């Protein structure tokens, strides 16, 4: 089953390039020859119904889940190379870290794991917390934070090191409307001022339509459509397009 194609030249222009990615959980096929290309410095959203394979794909990028066939590269570097992960930050749907850690300690820990010199920690932790708007809560324990604040700590942990690609899995899940608004603003800021490429798995089509540049729709592990938000017809919403694609696939 392990037929990973290695050594195929990938284009470094793309933040993510996936070719023929297959993944089985037992007899269930989670990814069925998925092909996907994500351009650098864009906000890209991967849409699909529950069980479509969105989270599995995201985890294969990080090597948390082993793909059985196909190839994924990050900025032209195969995900088989551990160095490729140095460019990627991952925020799970429910970011969890040791509740007795403070915000500052958590960010400092991720800096250390990314090889940031200890003497630079204090300054860079402050900078990172400022970007995510958490500098005033730096000394608070994670156990005392709201879901939205915890998500921001998660994002802060992505901004350490030299990460160019941020993978966010259902980042709006569990946030209140204000939390969603703040988080959307943060995502746009990360793209425009920090030059990051942001890949988002989401169910909230209306929000993604407002902030994303490009999108792809997957179902049953297969990519059904990939396009830019601008390519939607006048008067057509992302939700209309998504519904027609998914229903057409039934």
């Amino acid at each position: 089953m392990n037929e990973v194609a290695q050594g195929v030249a990938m284009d470094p222009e793309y933040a993510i390039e996936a070719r023929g990615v297959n993944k089985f959980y037992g007899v269930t096929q989670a990814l069925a020859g998925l092909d996907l290309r994500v351009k650098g410095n864009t906000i890209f959203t991967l849409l699909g119904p529950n069980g479509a394979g969105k989270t599995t794909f995201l985890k294969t990028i990080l090597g948390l889940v082993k793909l059985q066939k196909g190839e994924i590269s990050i900025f032209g570097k195969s995900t088989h190379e551990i160095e490729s992960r140095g460019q990627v930050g991952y925020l799970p749907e429910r970011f969890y870290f040791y509740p007795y850690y403070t915000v500052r300690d958590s960010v400092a820990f991720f800096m250390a794991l990314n090889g940031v010199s200890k003497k630079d920690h204090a300054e860079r932790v402050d900078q990172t917390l400022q970007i995510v708007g958490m500098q005033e809560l730096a000394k608070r324990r994670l156990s005392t934070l709201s879901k939205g604040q915890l998500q921001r700590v998660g994002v802060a942990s992505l901004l350490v090191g030299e990460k160019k690609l941020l993978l966010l899995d259902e980042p709006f899940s569990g946030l209140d409307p204000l939390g969603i608004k703040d988080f959307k603003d943060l995502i746009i800021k990360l793209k425009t001022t920090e030059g990051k490429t942001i890949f988002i798995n989401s169910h909230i089509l209306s929000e993604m339509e407002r902030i994303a540049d490009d999108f792809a729709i997957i179902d049953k592990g297969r990519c059904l459509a990939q396009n830019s938000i601008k390519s939607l017809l006048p008067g057509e919403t992302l939700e209309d397009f998504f519904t027609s694609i998914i229903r057409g696939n039934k």
Partner: protein
Amino acid sequence: MQTSVLFALYINTIQKEIRSKTLIFVLMINLGLIFVVNSGIDLIIKSVESQNMINLHGQKASIFYFLISIWCTFLSIIFGIDCIKSDLESGVASVIMAQPLRRWWYVLMRILGATTIVFGHYLLSLFVAWIIFYISDGTNQLNMQIFGALFATLLVNLAVITLSALIAMSLNKMVAFILSLIVCSIVGIANQAMGTEDFLYNIQHIGLAKILGLVAHYLLPRIGIWSSFAGSLINGKMPAMNYGLELLHYGLTLAALFWLLSFIFSRREL
């Protein structure tokens, strides 16, 4: 391999235990146990001596060492099971492993961190016991020989933690705890039964129990031998054994256990 990354993981292992309630709870039990053991031993010594049976007074440190070693084996199992399993259960493992790390780095630092915690408990227990003994009867019961046994105790802790972490990879914590206790007991019994005999003698009269014993004695680190070694040192004896060969066996079997643990963890989907 970046040493600063390894060090961060190692410190994180210790911090996550120090800041958790489990360690405080265990520490309090530990201190309580020392007081109970001290009073219990005094009671037994007085009772036995009043009947003019044997003089146990000089054996206080040995008895205490024996009990604290058993306690530390329990702790090794608890922290061995928890060091990786808790991260897997909480989802922290996937957040950490999304960083540019090799999985065996993580496993190694979790094992070494847990060993440091247990060994720290051991040292603290010795220190507190020394103070209690000194205050209660004015004698210096803990001598340098106890510190000579530290190395052997460290080997035992490291092996038990690695073994327990391995067992916990595919079982829930309670089952893993019980199974680890059983495996450690089997290894200890097998080491006592087979440690003084040569290989050809040990493979005579093969049966199911014997096969189990042979596997425990030859394929797993000999925690029973090293525990006995530490105990003998406390009693001022140097046991007759081939130290070079035993150390080589320990090193090889521990490396094999660690490799197996790392392999299973690297194949695991997070």
